[in-house]
C-alpha cells in the first residue's frame, strides 16, 4: 500500500524524524492561508508518484499570492510522469512546504533484503531525482548496509552510512539518530520501503527529509488499521480497486485480451504466452484457489466491464479450484451481463467433466480450448474478429 508525501512526512514527524514544515491544501484559498505561515514556500502536487517536479508538479513560490496562483494551476492538473503512465494522475491536493536553504543533497532508503531475511539501508551522496541514473551508471557510489529486523538498528551501521555521505561530527550524530528512528518506524509499521530522496543538509547544518515515500507490506495491513486509514482509493486504478473489494489479485495492463486464471504463476504464464503468440493481455488476474461462484462472477464482471477487452481467455487448472465453480460463475455472469465479447475457456483438473458439461448445457456460445496454447491462439484470433 502507498501513501502521499504529506502523510509520509506526518508519519516521520510522529517518530521525531526532522521534516520541513508543511500544510496540505485542497483549494487555492487554503493554499494561500498555508503559504502565509511560511512566507516563501514550495507548492507540491500530491499524487502517488515520484518525478513530480520534472512533470511540473513542484514549484517554488516567493509569496503567498504566488503560492495561490501556482496552487490553482497545479490543483486539477493531470500529472504525467514515468511512473503514472500516459494517462497520468489527477492532482487533488497540494502540500505547501516551507522553503529550505539546501547545501547538499543525499539519497537514503530502507527496504527488505529477502536473501538475508532482514533489512538493507541504501545510501548515496548523489541525491535528488537522479538516483536511478546513479544506480545504472555509478553503482559503486551507492552503499548498502544490512540491518537485522530482529536486532534493529545499531549505531555502527550508521557510522558506515555517514562515511559514504561525508558527514562528520554533529551531522553524523544527526544521521545516526535519524536512521535509528526510520528503522524503528519501518519495523513497527511493517513497511516495504522508506525512501528519503532527497535527504538534505541545510546551510545551517541540519539534516532534513525534503521528500519522503513510505510503502507498506500489504500482508501486514490486517494489523495496522491506522495505516489503512491513510489509503487513498483515488490513487488506485479503478478496476484494481474493485478487484481488491472482492479479494481478487488483479493488475491492469493495456492490451485487449482479458485473462482469468487460477494461480499467480499460471496467470503470469498466461500473459506471457499471449504476448509470445502476438497478442496483448489486458490484465493479470488470479482468482485464487478457494474462489466461490460469487468471486468468479465478480472477476468476470470486471473483465466484461473493461472497454479495451475484445476477447476473454479463461485458463483454469483446478487443484483446489473446482472447474464446476468456474463454469457456474461464468454462466451466471454472462447471463446477467450478456456476452459482449468472445470467451475462450480452457478447463483442466478437478471436476473438469462437470465444468465442461455446465458450459455445454448453458447454451452460451463459449469457445472451448483443448490446452493452454490452443486457448491463447483462439483468444488472439477472436480478439482480431476472426472466426474461431
Amino acid at each position, binding site marked *: 500500500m502507498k501513501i502521499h508525501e504529506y502523510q509520509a512526512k506526518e508519519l516521520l514527524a510522529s517518530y521525531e524524524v526532522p521534516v520541513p514544515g508543511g500544510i496540505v491544501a485542497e483549494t487555492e484559498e487554503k493554499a494561500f492561508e498555508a503559504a502565509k505561515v511560511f512566507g516563501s514556500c514550495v507548492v507540491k502536487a500530491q499524487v502517488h508518484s515520484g518525478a513530480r517536479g520534472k512533470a511540473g508538479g513542484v514549484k517554488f513560490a516567493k509569496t503567498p499570492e504566488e503560492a495561490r496562483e501556482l496552487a490553482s494551476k497545479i490543483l486539477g492538473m493531470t500529472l504525467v510522469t514515468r*511512473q503514472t503512465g500516459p494517462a497520468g494522475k489527477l492532482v487533488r491536493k497540494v502540500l505547501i512546504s516551507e522553503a529550505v536553504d539546501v547545501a547538499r543533497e543525499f539519497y537514503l532508503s530502507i527496504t*527488505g533484503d*529477502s*536473501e538475508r*531475511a*532482514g533489512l538493507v539501508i541504501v545510501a548515496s551522496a548523489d541525491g535528488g531525482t537522479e538516483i536511478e541514473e546513479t*544506480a*545504472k551508471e555509478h553503482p559503486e557510489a551507492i552503499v548498502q548496509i544490512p540491518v537485522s*529486523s*530482529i536486532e534493529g538498528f545499531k549505531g555502527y551501521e550508521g557510522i558506515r552510512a555517514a562515511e559514504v555521505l561525508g558527514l562528520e561530527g554533529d551531522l553524523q550524530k544527526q544521521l545516526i539518530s535519524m536512521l535509528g528512528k526510520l528503522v524503528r518506524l519501518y*519495523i513497527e509499521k*511493517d513497511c*516495504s520501503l522508506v525512501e528519503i530522496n532527497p535527504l538534505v543538509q541545510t546551510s545551517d547544518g541540519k539534516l532534513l527529509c525534503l521528500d519522503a515515500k513510505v510503502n507498506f*507490506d*500489504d*500482508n*501486514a495491513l*490486517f*494489523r495496522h488499521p491506522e495505516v489503512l486509514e491513510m489509503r487513498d482509493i483515488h490513487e488506485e486504478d479503478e478496476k484494481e480497486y474493485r478487484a481488491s473489494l472482492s479479494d481478487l*489479485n488483479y*493488475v491492469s*495492463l493495456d492490451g485487449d485480451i482479458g485473462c482469468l*486464471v*487460477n*494461480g*499467480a*504463476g*499460471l*496467470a*503470469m*504464464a*498466461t*500473459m*506471457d*504466452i*499471449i*504476448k*509470445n*503468440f502476438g497478442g496483448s*493481455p489486458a490484465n*493479470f488476474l*488470479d482468482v485464487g*484457489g*478457494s474462489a466461490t461462484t460469487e468471486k468468479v462472477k465478480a472477476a468476470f464482471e470486471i473483465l466484461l466491464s473493461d472497454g479495451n477487452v475484445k476477447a476473454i481467455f479463461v485458463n483454469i*487448472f*483446478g*487443484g*483446489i*479450484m473446482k472447474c464446476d465453480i468456474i463454469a457456474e460463475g461464468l454462466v451466471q455472469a454472462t447471463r446477467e451481463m450478456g456476452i459482449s465479447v468472445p470467451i475462450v475457456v480452457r478447463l*483442466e*483438473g*478437478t471436476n473438469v467433466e462437470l465444468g465442461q458439461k455446465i458450459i455445454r448445457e448453458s447454451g452460451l456460445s463459449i469457445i472451448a480450448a483443448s*490446452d*493452454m*496454447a490452443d486457448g491463447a491462439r483462439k483468444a488472439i484470433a477472436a480478439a482480431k474478429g476472426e472466426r474461431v
Partner: protein
Amino acid sequence: MSIFVNKDTRVLVQGITGKQGAFHTEKMIEYGTAIVGGVTPGKGGQSLLGVPVFNTVYDAVKETGANASVIYVPPKFAADSIIEAIDAGIRIIVCITEGIPVLDMARVKHYLDGSSSRLIGPNCPGIITPEECKIGIMPGYIHRKGHVGVISRSGTLTYEAVKQLSDRNLGQSTVVGIGGDPIRGTGFLDCLKAFEADPDTCAVVLNGEIGGSGEEEAASFIRTMTKPVAAFIGGQSAPAGKRMGHAGAIISGGKGTASGKIRALQEAGAVVAMTPDLIGASLVEALERRGIRPSDL
C-alpha cells in the same frame, strides 16, 4: 528414492479442524499419505476423519512420533505455528498459508537457523513424492512415479508442468513447491543439491518467475550438475514495479527480471522453455542433448 518426503513420512496437520485443513486432510488420506495426527488448540482429544486431534504440536509428536507437519493456519497465526513446529523438532514443515507478513517470515527464517527443521513454503502448494506421500493441496491424479525432479515457485503452473511430463510418460521423483513469497524456507538451490544427490532422480524441471535472485543463484549450481535441467520463467511480460499476485513476484530497481533469469539459466546449460506449453518438450530436449532417450528414464 526422492527427496525430503517418502512413504515413511508421518504427517501432522496444523489447523486440521479449519475448512481448508479438514478438506485437504481428507484428500491427503485418500492419496495414501500417513496422516498420524492433527493440531488445533482447544480441540485436543477430538478426532477428525479417524485422526486424533491434539492441543499442541509437542503433544502430537509425543503421542504419534510424527516427523512432518503441514500448516493450514491463517496469516495472522501462521508464523507462530511454524515456530511451534520447529520447537517440537518437526523435521519437515510445509506451510501452505499465503499472506504472512514479510517481517514475520524474517523472524521465522532466523529461527530455522541451527534447528533440525526444514521449512517448505510459505505460500506454496506443498510437496509430493508420487505414490508415497502427498503433503499439500496439489491434485494427486496428475502425478506419476518416476525420475524427474520438479521445483516450482508456483502452484497451478506446476500442475501444468507435471501434466506435460506425465503425458510424455516422464514420471516425477519428487515435486517441491517452494512458494511465491520473497522469504522462503527452502530455495531452488536446496532442492537442486538434493536432486543431484538423489540416485532416483535423473533430470530436473525448474519453474521460476520474476523477483529476487533465487534462479540466478541456482544457475551457478546448475553449471556443476551432472543431471540435465529444463526451466520456465514466468512473468516475461510483467510490468516493472507491480506485484504480480505472489508477494515475491516483483521487478524492482531493474533487478529480478525474467530476461536476466532466462539468460543466467541458459548460460548455465539449462534448456529454457520460452512459453509454458513447452516445458515438457524442453525437458525432452535437455535429455536428448545428453544422449538420454525419455524412454530410458
